């Protein structure tokens, strides 16, 4: 069989724990508040739903190429990775701990639809606390790298959190957006967004589009090892910039230009053409390396 397929371990379909096992140096995974020491969400129990011991998120210490780091991994298969009270508090606690310990980095394995509706207020506030905590970590010089490539992508408030991180590593399978296509379809109609047209969903929210647009720093294969080497590469020589008006002014200008240029578009194909991609139709079928070459060859 094709050797590269045989050795690949899909990030998309792995559990949060499997992702961490493959991402960190072997044997370095050290869970904080492991399942045996925690209890499932009492709020889900009140709604007659079984919870998970870890409430759908693993927080841990570990090493990446011998560099001591912290990591957060959301479990997309449990309640869509959505943030509830315990889930959110674990993330906030870990980000604060990373600041206390001046960690080399936090890897944030996002796989979430956003707020867990069953604990809606707790989830929304927790996401707000995560947003503040991510920015506090970065202000303290701790880079927070988002890794997006799970089945739930990074949506809702977690889409905002992802964009607050120092950088995003995404796979083609990864999705990054605010409202889910299903929500838009329900509210605005199938003509606005056909959520069953998966190719369209990916052209609007998928990893390749976000990479081409510059919303994600790095595009990697759907492979745990690729995320590992991507994170290693990104962190090597990384200096977390101090928050500054100059940086946000630059972002402001870039976002304003982008809005002025592309506001009328509704499909990635249109944006890619405007970005200077000669054959936008071919983008969905390009492999990762060709995508990187394509992006690097674009006019700036």
């Amino acid at each position: 069989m094709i050797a590269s397929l045989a050795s690949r371990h899909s990030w998309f379909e792995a559990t949060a724990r499997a992702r961490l096992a493959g991402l960190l140096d072997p044997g370095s995974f050290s869970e904080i508040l492991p399942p045996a020491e925690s209890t499932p969400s009492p709020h889900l129990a009140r709604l007659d739903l079984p919870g998970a011991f870890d409430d759908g998120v693993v927080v841990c210490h570990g090493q990446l190429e011998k560099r001591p780091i912290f990591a957060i991994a959301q479990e997309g298969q449990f309640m869509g990775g959505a943030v509830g009270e315990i889930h959110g508090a674990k993330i906030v606690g870990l980000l604060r701990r990373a600041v206390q310990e001046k960690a080399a980095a936090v890897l944030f394995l996002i796989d979430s639809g956003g707020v867990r509706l069953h604990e809606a207020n707790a989830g929304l506030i927790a996401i707000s606390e995560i947003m503040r905590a991510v920015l506090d970590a970065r202000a303290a010089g701790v880079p927070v790298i988002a890794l997006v490539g799970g089945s739930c992508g990074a949506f809702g408030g977690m889409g905002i959190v992802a964009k607050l991180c120092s950088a995003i590593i995404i796979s083609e399978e990864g999705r990054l957006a605010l409202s889910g296509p299903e929500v838009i379809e329900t509210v605005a109609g199938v003509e606005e967004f056909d959520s069953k047209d998966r190719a369209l969903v990916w052209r609007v929210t998928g990893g390749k589009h976000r990479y081409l647009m510059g919303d994600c720093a790095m595009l990697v294969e759907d492979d745990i090892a690729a995320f590992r080497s991507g994170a290693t590469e990104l962190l090597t020589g990384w200096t977390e910039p101090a928050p500054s008006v100059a940086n946000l002014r630059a972002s402001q200008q870039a976002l304003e230009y982008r809005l002025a240029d592309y506001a009328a578009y509704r499909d990635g194909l249109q944006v890619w053409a405007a970005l200077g991609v000669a054959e936008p139709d071919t983008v969905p079928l390009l492999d990762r390396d060709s995508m990187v070459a394509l992006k690097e060859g674009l006019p700036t």
Partner: protein
Amino acid sequence: METLEFRFNSKPAPRAADPALCGVVGSGNLEILVKPGMQPDACQLSIKTSARGFAETWQAVLGSFAASHAAGGTVIAINDMGATPAVVTLRLAQALAEYQGGAR
């Protein structure tokens, strides 16, 4: 949701250093947490399941597991989201193996 408790006699399992977790609480799936217990010749199980009315099936599946594996001296906690007996049986075997993999 339904909460079920069972206790079965089972051959003693090697005592492990750490608890082991297997599976995810997703649709048609379950998570199983195996911890060391006090009674070396018994396996104690507690289950929270989204599917009501299957106590007899659980008893049969878990009883068969305790009879065919050395699971004595463990306390097993399960959160279930509608897993079929086939999945439960498979996960139990995986969880016990993982637990014993950490045996001293």
